[in-house]
């Protein structure tokens, strides 16, 4: 492929701008909608504050309650593994930290490459496991929609192309890197319009929940 450099430059240039614009417009449109629609005013007298329980729930809900764990231990464990792996690879890999620095000017420490490499490999295996589970589990199989498979594919390809690029398993390298950035761009583009929005809305929803419970004076 003789245009590999042109491809990479396009992916890093105009295409990145497009992806970022769609991502930001889409995501903030949804945010504005969610916040402005708000909730119905609650005229009952509050029994306790809502802010603190709201914030608490944002984090406490990350740990599954024992019942859920027993009922769906695979979901909880594998889900945790790949979510954490994905986040570590995304936020603590040197080139990604440099990307954030280039975009926002903020830096944080990164992990050594071999550590990120290992975590990425684990993430890939966990992701494959989730797909197998989805395809074989009788209930999951029936409740899975196109959206679920699309999101799985994009997430998997983002990680896979990153792994391939890091190990330089695709030649020439500009193609390998370009494919990875392109997949990340597709991820950004579909994020506001698929269940990927949960990256942000999960915490908003938890806050609403926690706040509502807090107001009623019950533990969430």
């Amino acid at each position, binding site marked *: 492929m*003789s245009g590999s450099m042109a491809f990479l430059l396009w992916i*890093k240039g105009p295409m990145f701008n497009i992806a970022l614009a769609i991502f930001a417009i889409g995501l903030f449109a949804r945010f504005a909608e969610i916040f402005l629609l708000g909730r119905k005013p609650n005229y009952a007298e509050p029994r306790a504050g809502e802010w603190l329980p709201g914030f608490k729930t944002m984090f406490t809900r990350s740990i599954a309650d024992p019942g859920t764990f027993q009922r769906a231990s695979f979901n909880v464990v594998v889900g945790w593994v790949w979510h954490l792996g994905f986040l570590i690879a995304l936020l603590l890999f040197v080139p990604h930290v440099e990307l954030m620095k280039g975009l926002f000017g903020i830096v944080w420490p990164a992990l050594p490459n071999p550590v990120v490499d290992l975590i990425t490999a684990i993430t890939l295996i966990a992701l494959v496991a989730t797909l197998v589970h989805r395809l074989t589990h009788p209930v999951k199989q029936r409740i899975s929609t196109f959206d679920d498979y699309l999101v799985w594919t994009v997430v998997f390809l983002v990680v896979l192309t990153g792994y391939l690029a890091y190990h330089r398993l695709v030649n020439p390298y500009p193609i390998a890197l370009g494919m990875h950035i392109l997949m990340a761009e597709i991820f950004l583009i579909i994020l506001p319009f698929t269940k990927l929005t949960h990256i942000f809305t999960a915490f908003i929803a938890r806050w609403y929940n926690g706040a509502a419970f807090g107001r009623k004076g019950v533990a969430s």
Partner: protein
Amino acid sequence: MIDRKTPNKTLGESLRDHGLSRRGFLKFCAATASMMALPPGMVPVIAAALEQARRPSVIWLSFQECTGCTESLTRSHAPALEDLILNLISLDYHHTLQAAAGDAAEDARLQAMEANTGQYLVIVDGSIPGPDSNPGFSTVAGRSNYEILMETVEHAAAVIAVGTCAAFGGLPQASPNPTGAMSVMDLVKDKPVINVSGCPPIPMVITGVLAHYLTFGRLPELDAYHRPLAFYGQSIHDRCYRRPFYDKGKFAETFDDEGAKLGWCLYRLGCKGPSTYNACATMRWNGGVSWPIESGHPCLGCSEPSFWDAGSFYQPLSVPLTATSGDLLTAAVGGAVVGAGVATLANKQIKTAVANRQPVTVEELEEKL
């Protein structure tokens, strides 16, 4: 009148005429093998081939260039340039190096073309204003670069584009490309084109490609960009002696921090080594003294297409070219406005629905059933 025909003597004969012993010839072959990036085991093959080889006529055309490539070539030390010119090739036309000037120079080119038709090599340095550009942007002897290139290439055996300008357009082609500069590859479609990219290319690579043609009588194996694989087959990153530090995640953060002093990887300082294919890491520069990364500076990626337009030399490879946090903010605000609009509309609909709601009696409901 000078005879411009390729001399009939083989290289072996003419070297011996110059008083070169067989041991000297063996050494010459060892140096040539090293220059061609071939394993020393190939020396006997090279010796046999060079013994029989004939010096090709070479015409060197300079277009929109800075003469840096010629400067680089004249620092080729193996074999010394004199040897190269006298023994390996018959350099019949070269602006900077030839003694002739004016009409005599142009005549030399035409004569060499006529005497060696179909067999001479054309070396080009510099990019060419395309056929649609103003021909006056760059001329030689009152004729446009494009015209001279096409005329000279017509009966050539092959074209070697030396330097990133000739190979990919280089600096003249960098945005906004005022002269409509094009590469040799863009213009010459019916002849083999070899690209020896780099700004400038490693001198040994220029001579190595010539030596390969001379030794084996054919062009070396090329990559997707028409570059000889022997020199451009591996990326800088893959042969970089700082690679162990990259793998361990040890990076210099500034040019003078502890990491820089310890020779750690220069990725965060903008090194383009991972996406750059060249032989600097092994052949080095200035007769093998050092090379950019060994001197503490990140690789600029000068042997790749569009390297002038590929973002800052000091920004890591993973940083996007143009997007900024400002753009992101603008898009976010735009998105919020859209979302607010949608939400207000929805709220209004709910309100009007509530306002216009009519009480329904049980009788009415039963009627509808």
